[in-house]
């Protein structure tokens, strides 16, 4: 033990800390002006959106570095902020397209190149679409949602023309080509890294880009940060204004807020609702909250178990939830209410919408008595610990409120890793949960959440042949007939309440005042390409 050397080294270090001057290079100030610093909670785990177990932050990486054939237009939302427009498809790699009842033919942009300089041809597009429908798992599943199922559907007519042959008329086919999954990959580069066991180069693409999109990756430190650099040769849209983007992980929510407030970070999504509510009042930052389309936080009841098999019990619960309290003290107003409408009839073909329930304890008690449970019963109320910041206070309020009508609910916290497994079993009596769909169509939501096919998201195990018929028909119709079908299944959902809608969440984002051009996207990740830093 060399005590002296210890003391000597610390003394030197201490002196350095107090006397060394700040050494800033001029380049650093310059870099700060041209760089966007995005701080967030979770890191991407892959660069390949079609890989196994690719997480949501990876969608963001993929969205900004790869091109798709087409993208969505933009509109202003009610608050005057930019919002993608799901009705308007716009060119990205494809400059125009011609849709017939049996196929769609795309003309590809001339002069578009991948990051390595290879021209993008229809062969690359075909290879990429083949890959998306062949690798299995989530990407293949998402493609199927738009009736894109077999490689034979995709034809490279010539270098600049690509055709998709339809299996059936499906109004989701074209919108599905604009979602993050069908990215255009550099097939020549990928094939070099493909092996016999791994024909789609899944291993290699996990850590490498074969892209031609607006940004390249300068540095990726897994779990810590991704640094993006603008692709100055990008042709498939207006050249982005921001040269560099640093996406850095800051695990503590308190520090993310501190960094924003001190002006050291430019933009962040991941803050608790209370912080967003407070920051929205501060003049220093811009806070934009956009209602997440086709999404809700709800209370689900297992209709295949007593006592929730009784519709009167479910209605009693729906009349007993402390809706306004949840809005005020859990969400701090950062959500849209889905309760307190005039009645339980649908008000249009939009979803989600308000039902007619509100907190009315006497009415709930009467329903409990009519159902044969005047003294209530005992049950459990479960939630995913991964969503504890909202669902823990929410379930506590629900527990308190249900006590008033005699239902003694024990709260059951389930760790994130087990949650999906528990949902698959469909044995939890009562849960608080969230669901959101990418494609903004009510029948898409209902197909996952209420249809008797009993997908994992139909967490209530709800089966009603009448509703199934309405949903199935709505998927392939339009016009007045479609409107009647949608209203039909919404009315059933409200009357039978296997799930009680509580609120529609907002996608909140806080940014510095000098950041403009933020656009809401259905995939809820940040699109760097439209942002401006002045």
């Amino acid at each position: 033990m060399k005590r002296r050397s210890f003391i000597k080294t610390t003394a030197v270090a201490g002196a350095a800390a107090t006397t060394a001057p700040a050494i800033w290079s001029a380049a650093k100030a310059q870099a700060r002006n041209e760089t966007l610093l995005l701080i967030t909670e979770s890191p991407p785990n892959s660069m390949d959106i079609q890989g196994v177990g690719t997480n949501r932050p990876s969608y963001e990486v993929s969205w900004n570095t790869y091109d798709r054939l087409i993208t969505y237009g933009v509109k202003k939302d009610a608050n005057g902020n930019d919002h993608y427009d799901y009705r308007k498809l716009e060119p990205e790699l494809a400059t125009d397209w011609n849709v017939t009842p049996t196929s769609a033919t795309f003309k590809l942009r001339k002069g578009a190149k991948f990051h390595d300089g290879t021209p993008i041809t229809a062969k690359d597009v075909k290879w990429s679409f083949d890959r998306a429908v062949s690798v299995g798992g989530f990407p293949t599943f998402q493609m199927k949602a738009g009736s894109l199922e077999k490689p034979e559907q995709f034809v490279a007519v010539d270098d600049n023309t690509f055709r998709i042959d339809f299996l059936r008329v499906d109004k989701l086919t074209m919108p599905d080509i604009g979602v993050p999954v069908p990215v255009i990959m550099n097939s020549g580069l990928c094939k070099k890294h493909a092996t016999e066991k791994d024909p789609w180069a899944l291993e290699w693409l996990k850590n490498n880009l074969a892209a031609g999109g607006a940004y390249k990756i300068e540095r990726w430190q897994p779990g810590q940060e991704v640094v993006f650099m603008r692709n100055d040769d990008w042709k498939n849209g207006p050249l982005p204004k921001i040269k560099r983007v640093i996406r850095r992980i800051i695990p503590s929510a308190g520090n993310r807020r501190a960094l924003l407030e001190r002006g050291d970070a430019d933009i962040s999504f991941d803050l608790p609702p209370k912080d967003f509510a407070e920051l929205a009042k501060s003049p220093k930052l811009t806070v934009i909250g956009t209602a997440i389309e086709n999404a809700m936080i709800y209370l689900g009841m297992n209709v295949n178990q007593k006592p929730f098999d009784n519709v009167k019990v479910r209605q009693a619960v729906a009349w007993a939830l402390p809706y306004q309290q949840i809005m005020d003290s859990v969400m701090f107003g950062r959500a849209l209410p889905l309760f307190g409408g005039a009645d339980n009839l649908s008000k249009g073909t939009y979803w989600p919408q308000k039902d007619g329930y509100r907190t009315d304890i006497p009415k709930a008690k009467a329903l409990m008595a009519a159902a044969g449970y005047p003294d209530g019963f005992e049950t459990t109320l479960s939630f995913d610990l991964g969503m504890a910041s909202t669902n823990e206070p929410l379930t506590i309020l629900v527990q308190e409120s249900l006590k008033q009508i005699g239902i003694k609910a024990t709260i059951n916290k389930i760790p994130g890793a087990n949650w999906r497994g528990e949902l698959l079993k469909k044995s939890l009596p009562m849960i608080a949960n969230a669901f959101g769909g990418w494609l903004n169509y009510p029948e898409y939501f209902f197909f996952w959440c209420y249809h008797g096919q009993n997908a994992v998201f139909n967490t209530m195990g709800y089966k009603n042949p009448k509703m199934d018929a309405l949903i199935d028909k709505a998927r392939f119709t339009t016009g007045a007939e479609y409107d009647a079908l949608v209203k039909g299944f919404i009315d059933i959902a409200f009357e039978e309440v296997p799930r009680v809608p509580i609120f529609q969440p907002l996608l909140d984002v806080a940014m510095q005042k000098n950041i403009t051009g933020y656009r809401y996207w259905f995939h809820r990740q940040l699109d760097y390409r439209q942002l401006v830093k002045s």
Partner: protein
Amino acid sequence: MLNLLLSRLATAIPSIVGVVVVTFMLTRLLPGDPAAYFAGLAASPQAIAEIRHNLGLDKSLPEQFVAYVGDLLHGNLGNSLSTGQPVVAEIATRLPASAELTLFALIVAVAIAIPLGVLAAVKQGTWIDHLCRVVTTAGVSLPVFFTGLLFAYVFYYLLQWAPAPTGRIDVFLSPPTHITGFYLIDSALTGNLEAFWGALRQLALPAISMAIFSLAPLARMTRGSMLAVLGSDFIRTARASGLSPRTVIFTYAFRNAVLPVITTLGMVFSFLLGANVLVETVFAWPGIGLYAVNALITSDYAPVQGFVLTMAILYVALNLTIDFVYGLVDPRVRLDS
């Protein structure tokens, strides 16, 4: 000395084998289904089954174990599912981050704790003894994450003395060229002053919060052990022989009192290395503790096993080092072996 080392190494092998078996069994017996977790939002049961097959989770436990040990022997700890990277590579980049932070914190702690402990023992019952008591009690009563948050709030948010808590180096600086993985050493070796200063500034707050916590055991141990030695016969003899107080305290007393302090130091070091998850979270430090906890939350087996195994090997290595240092400090240990 060599014999001692070899015999120690031999006793370490069964513990490492035990750790391999236990970590394998534990991660399998815990509830949670990684296949369901990683299948993503819109997974069908078929998709989950496919992933389970890809991950080899549909095989029997003994088969999985044999595959695991086979990989281990090839130095392959598997891939992390949540970051998508090989566990070996991840641990190799994250261990230096934790080690740099912990070592720096320990150096700060030792620099304060040992003089404080020695002084408190020599001047027992005076104000400095009381100061030692107050400092150590306060240090051990304040959890690290609390001091960390408090420091970040006061020194970054309010006073702006400290840099933003964004990790090992300022966001707009590039990390120094990789040599040892310790940013301070690497930047000093390459003469990159900007990176050195940036890394040092980032290191200061988390290291001080950890140092405050580890002060207590070190100072108390130094004081106690010094008191025992100062009361012994040979010190009385040395004093009676008219040796200067300086020689008595440092050459005779301290050298004899330092053995238990070294043991404590080793324990504090290994404890800090694994248990500084909270500091790593507060200061966005890309260390090994944060990595292990994130993996545990997502039922990501490979990193958890890799982490436990690394820590076990580290403990063994640390104990060997301590034995070795014992020998240097105290000739009796050498003779015994």
